[in-house]
């Protein structure tokens, strides 16, 4: 096995930014309950509120940090929105839910839950690049539509949607508009107001902060039914003693993400394109999945006909390269990536897909190493394959 490790799975999660780690370790002694009224409590609360402001600033609502509700992560934020719709739909006249076929499982399964509760749910189609079918969206919107929930950027293929346009359509119909922006924040500019979002989901561990902490942006006046009932924390929107250290780590991660974004995006996008060009030149019949232009700067999803994704993944792992795959075998289910299938690539190309997601620490050498290691792996797998490439 190789002693060299090249981590290319930043969409799965990221390591702590050194400066986030430093801030968290430094403030470890701030243990007091941030709801306590004594000095230590007030001090802890002060850190939480500073973090809230930094997170608000990352999505362009720094003037109204109270619109940020801290949660345990992206899954909780998304589920909170869908639970809210459950309560609204049971009482009110609107019940229609519109989402896309390529959402993260935490949105898809929440939507399926509402469907099983009798809500009409539409899973919008996407085109071959993963872009939402806008005419289907327009046709699906109506006076019954309660929620439109569309992810800003896809975790597997990186395709970025036209959020301002989608938000405008959703709002014009009178529906609430939610976006799972978990993969977008820190990678592309995100502005909740520009998108006319009522709700926006973030997760800290995707932006070089700790795991187990996230946020839900809540436009002023947008209804929210707490998923976790209890004390008065977060204006009653989300009970539970404040996760001080996690939250202040989120604050620092948000500050850095905002500050470093232009430089990060430029550098990582150049490396991503170098990786794409190098692999496409060295390996015959590679298919580049996702949108050619509207794509996350760090995400490259490729299919290698004739080779199976988990086999590629494991050969890469043996060479010290860490990636993920859309193959069914890797997921433990029988179906390969629902995202790739929704783009119409067909099961074989979905089984043979590999996602490279680059990050802050990715170097030219890392990219060169993959361009050197992967071609013989594909050649070897294709040579033993029953399937024509």
């Amino acid at each position, binding site marked *: *096995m190789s002693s060299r490790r090249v981590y290319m799975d930043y969409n799965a999660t990221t390591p702590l930014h050194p400066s986030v780690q430093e801030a968290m370790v430094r403030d470890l002694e701030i243990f007091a309950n941030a709801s306590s009224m004594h000095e230590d409590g007030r001090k802890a609360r002060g850190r939480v509120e500073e973090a809230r402001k930094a997170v608000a600033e990352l999505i362009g609502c720094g003037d109204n940090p109270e619109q940020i509700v801290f949660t345990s992560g992206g899954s909780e934020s998304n589920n909170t929105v869908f639970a809210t719709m459950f309560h609204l739909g049971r009482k009110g006249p609107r019940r229609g839910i519109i989402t896309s076929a390529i959402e993260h499982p935490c949105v898809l399964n929440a939507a399926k839950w509402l469907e099983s509760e009798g809500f009409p749910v539409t899973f919008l189609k996407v085109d071959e690049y993963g872009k939402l079918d806008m005419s289907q969206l327009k046709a699906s919107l109506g006076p019954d539509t309660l929620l439109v929930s569309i992810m800003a950027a896809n975790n597997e293929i990186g395709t970025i949607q036209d959020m301002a346009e989608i938000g405008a359509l959703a709002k014009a119909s009178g529906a609430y508009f939610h976006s799972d922006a978990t993969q977008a924040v820190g990678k592309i500019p995100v502005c909740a107001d520009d998108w006319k979002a009522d709700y926006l989901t973030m997760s800290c561990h995707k932006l070089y902060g700790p795991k187990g902490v996230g946020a839900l942006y809540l436009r002023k006046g947008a209804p929210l039914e707490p998923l976790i009932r209890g004390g008065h924390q977060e204006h009653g929107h989300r009970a539970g003693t404040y996760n001080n250290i996690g939250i202040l780590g989120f604050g620092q991660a948000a500050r850095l993400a905002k500050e470093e974004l232009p430089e990060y995006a430029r550098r990582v996008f150049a490396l991503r394109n170098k990786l794409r060009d190098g692999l496409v030149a060295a390996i015959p019949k590679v298919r580049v999945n996702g949108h050619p232009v509207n794509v996350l700067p760090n995400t490259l999803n490729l299919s290698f006909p004739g080779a*199976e994704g*988990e*086999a590629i993944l494991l050969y890469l792992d043996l060479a010290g390269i860490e990636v993920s795959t859309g193959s*069914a*075998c890797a997921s433990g289910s029988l179906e390969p990536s629902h995202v790739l299938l929704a783009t119409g690539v067909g099961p074989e190309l979905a089984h043979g897909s590999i996602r490279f997601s680059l990050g802050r620490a990715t170097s030219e050498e890392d990219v060169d190493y993959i361009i050197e290691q992967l071609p013989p792996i594909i050649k070897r797998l294709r040579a033993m*394959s029953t399937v024509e490439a």
Partner: protein
Amino acid sequence: MQNASGPVLYYTDEVIDHFSQPRNVGELPREDTDGYACIGDPGCGDEMKLWIGVRDGIIGKIAFKSYGCPGAIATSSMLTELAKGKAIEEAAAISDDDVINALGGIPENKKHCSLLGVQALQAALADYRARSAR
């Protein structure tokens, strides 16, 4: 069984070994082939082709090709090792568990992969019998 410093914790060293150095990969030439089978479906993520050459009732030559996950490749490779040199009745008795045990176990969700090799061998033996009956 698992190698704690290894790359994928849930695969045994034997699986990794057979995956990274698969035995008997390739095709048998037509004149050496006495039985052949193709099993699986690439659309479902795995497909295997198996060739056997039989002399005096013994599987003297065997080769496979596989499109599939590490579990499929490793179990196919191990199956060919188990079948090689065996009398056809003995080879016909090789079970999924024999393959899995020879590999020191495979993850629960990969057990269906091991079926493919044994099924391919059964089908190749049936093909052999059909050819001999001609």
